[in-house]
């Protein structure tokens, strides 16, 4: 497949990239993203970085035809991956799709800035990095004091009730709760999601 003349440089490129694209399955990639989100795992971040960086640099060169801007695209994309990994939902799609979205958005804003010096960052409004549902939990919080909801809350299993009370009545962060209860952050998140789904079903049923 690869001719012998280019073999050398191909293999050295491989070393640069450290990990070859084809050999990493999508489960590993989304696992790394989740580790970044839940554990702020720097090693997972370094792995993600190594896998994506040659590709992002390559994409950036095509977009901007300028190595410095390609490097800026890499820096900005990976900064967003680090700071926004919690918006990634592995049930909604592949890690590559999400990172592509982050990169495409930054590239779009950079191009817009270059072309007409627009300082706006429209891209995340055009292509949201997370489903709108992610915000339901916050909107929902405003109504949680409602007495009826308090009743439904009592019908939840204790381990879910504990989480909802911690987050919405004691203002604890999900990280703090995980620490206090000595359970993984992922468990806190999934219990909260389950509890809110159940509560919403009750409320929806009543409002129909």
């Amino acid at each position, binding site marked *: 497949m690869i001719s012998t003349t280019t073999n050398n440089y191909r293999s050295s490129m491989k070393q640069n990239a450290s990990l070859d694209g*084809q050999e990493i399955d999508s489960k590993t990639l989304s696992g790394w993203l989740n580790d970044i989100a839940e554990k702020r795992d720097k090693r997972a*971040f370094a792995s993600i970085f190594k896998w994506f960086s040659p590709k992002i640099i*390559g994409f950036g060169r095509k977009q901007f035809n300028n190595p410095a801007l390609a490097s800026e695209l890499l820096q900005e994309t990976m900064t967003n991956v680090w700071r926004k990994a919690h918006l990634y939902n592995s049930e909604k799609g592949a890690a590559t799709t999400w990172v*592509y979205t982050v990169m495409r958005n930054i590239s779009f804003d950079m191009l817009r800035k270059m072309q007409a010096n627009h300082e706006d960052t429209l891209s995340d409004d*055009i292509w949201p990095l997370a489903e709108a549902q992610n*915000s339901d939990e916050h909107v929902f919080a405003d109504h949680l004091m409602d007495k009826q909801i308090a009743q439904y809350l009592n019908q939840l299993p204790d381990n879910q009730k504990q989480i909802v009370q911690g987050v919405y009545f004691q203002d604890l962060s999900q990280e703090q709760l995980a620490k206090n209860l000595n359970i993984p952050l992922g468990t806190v998140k999934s219990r909260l999601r389950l509890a809110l789904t159940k509560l919403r079903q009750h409320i929806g049923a009543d409002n129909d």
Partner: protein
Amino acid sequence: MIKHHPQLSLLKTYCAGELPASISVIIAAHIELCPHCQQQVEALTAKAAKDTFTYAYVEDEAEQSEFAEIDFASMIDDITLDDGIDEIKVAQPIELSLNQNTFYLPQVLRNLELSSWASLGKLSRSRVTLEDASLHTSLLHIDADGSVPEHTHNGFEITLLLEGSFKDEMGEYTKGDFIWLDGKHTHNPITEHGCLCLTVSSDSLHFTQGLSKLLNPIGKFIY
């Protein structure tokens, strides 16, 4: 039921981030209303991602040595130095009150300003402050029984029907319909119960018939 969608090739360019901002915005607004296109876009984005990330792009030796010069370790350190995360803003309904009606605008407009409304007969227009070269983005409201006299488009005009309905020579349009017209089309939209549209136009309309030629200033108004 939405019958008019952006063409697949347009959605593809949208996913690649290669369209002007105003066209990207109006497509995003359609997608908020259209589960069908939402699915298309998800699939197209996944494909674009796959195509982009399947091959390492660092091509020739010069590029490769430049690539090797980037100090990745310190970039990683810089980025992870700050443990903070970016929360996204909670989606709040964007209400618009106009002529005693309340409308809800697409979320994609949340950070864009609207100019004050200008009215001409049954037409009201507000500009969406989105600088994008010669493309103009506007909200256009037509009161019940209102119409836009027969006209053609010097450039192109994209209309997204946000609320209500209207009809023209080519058919009847309902909420969510995405209509792209250019100089080939001549039409005379009429609305029975009123409608609110988001529009992107590249040039002013041109009125074509009899006395309504006198209305050509309206064409500039709408554009």
